């Protein structure tokens, strides 16, 4: 027994280090940042075509993991082509003054199974807010797939003010969804 225990420990360590890999090569073409919202009770989906992600994620070394996402707001597809021309407006995203939105994760927490959460700061239209983004992480060979969503109230960030502040027309709740794929290949 005394011999078996250390060798089991060693074996566990070997397996863990074989599994544990750092996922840092983000596959932007396979990744997506989208959002769901309601307009006159009609569910609509939009997305951002351009974003940049820098990440190092190792499920075995969460304390050393980091992530930073920058989104080019003008690359928005609101799901309603009439609305796409409006987003640059001051009442909406005011892209002239705030061309990018971003999220910087400051810490990660394992929630059991493939569930995790990232805590960090979301900066949107000049407002910086502490948020917690839950996500799942699934490993598929060299590829790691991150899927998460985050609910925000657009009015907390001053998005859609003035005549657009009426939440009966465009709902306050917006669900931001992200799907990131990163490779662990060196």
């Amino acid at each position, binding site marked *: 027994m005394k011999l078996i225990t250390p060798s089991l420990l060693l074996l566990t360590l070997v397996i863990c280090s074989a599994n544990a890999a750092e996922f840092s090569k983000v596959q932007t073409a396979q990744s997506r940042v989208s959002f769901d919202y309601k307009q006159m*009770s*009609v*569910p609509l989906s939009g997305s951002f075509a351009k974003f940049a992600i820098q990440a190092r994620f190792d499920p075995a070394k969460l304390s050393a993991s980091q992530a930073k996402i920058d989104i080019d707001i003008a690359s928005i597809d609101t799901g309603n*082509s009439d609305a796409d021309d409006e987003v640059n407006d001051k009442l909406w995203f005011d892209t002239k003054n705030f061309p990018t939105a971003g999220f910087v994760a400051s810490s990660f927490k394992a929630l059991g199974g493939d569930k995790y959460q990232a805590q960090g700061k979301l900066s949107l239209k000049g407002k910086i807010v502490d948020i917690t983004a839950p996500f799942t992480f699934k490993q598929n060979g060299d590829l790691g797939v991150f899927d998460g969503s985050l609910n925000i109230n657009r009015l907390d960030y001053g998005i859609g003010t003035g005549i657009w502040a009426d939440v009966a027309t465009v709902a306050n709740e917006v669900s931001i969804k992200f799907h990131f794929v990163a490779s662990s290949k060196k």
Partner: protein
Amino acid sequence: MNTAYTKIAITLHWLVALLIFSAFPLGLYMSDLKFSPLKLQLYSYHKWIGVTIFLLFIARLLWRITNKPPELPESIVAWQRRAAHAVHHLLYTLLFLIPVTGWLMSSAKGVPVMYLGLVQLPDLLGKDKALGNLLETTHSVLNYLLLALVIMHIAAALKHHLIEKDETLTRMMPWLKKKTL
């Protein structure tokens, strides 16, 4: 011989007429508006009226299949009977095609129809901007055709009532007949 349409047919006819006379100017007005909450609201109301017209169209079609409409006055000559039937067939066709093109256009433009804010109509088409614009043009052309036919329909009814003084119009407006008695 019946000298008037049934109460159900008369109610459905005038209800649809009222809704068309609301949806048509609303459609013209809203499409020229600057993007605004008002525009989004009016689009929703226009779509709700359109779905209602479509549902009433189905009810009218069922009535028409199961009931014999009152005869036209005997004084009306053959070619005018044929013309009247042709216009009625076209009007019914448009009552079907106009709401359907509106529905398809909503799907192609990515903004599905949520009837009365409660029931979402399924998307029969995927999102496709070019197809959406094509359907928008089709929807608009069909509406101008409807306008032309409605003008003919009203002009013919008035001509029969005011010039020929026959019973064509009173079949759909029996209360006019009672007044003259």
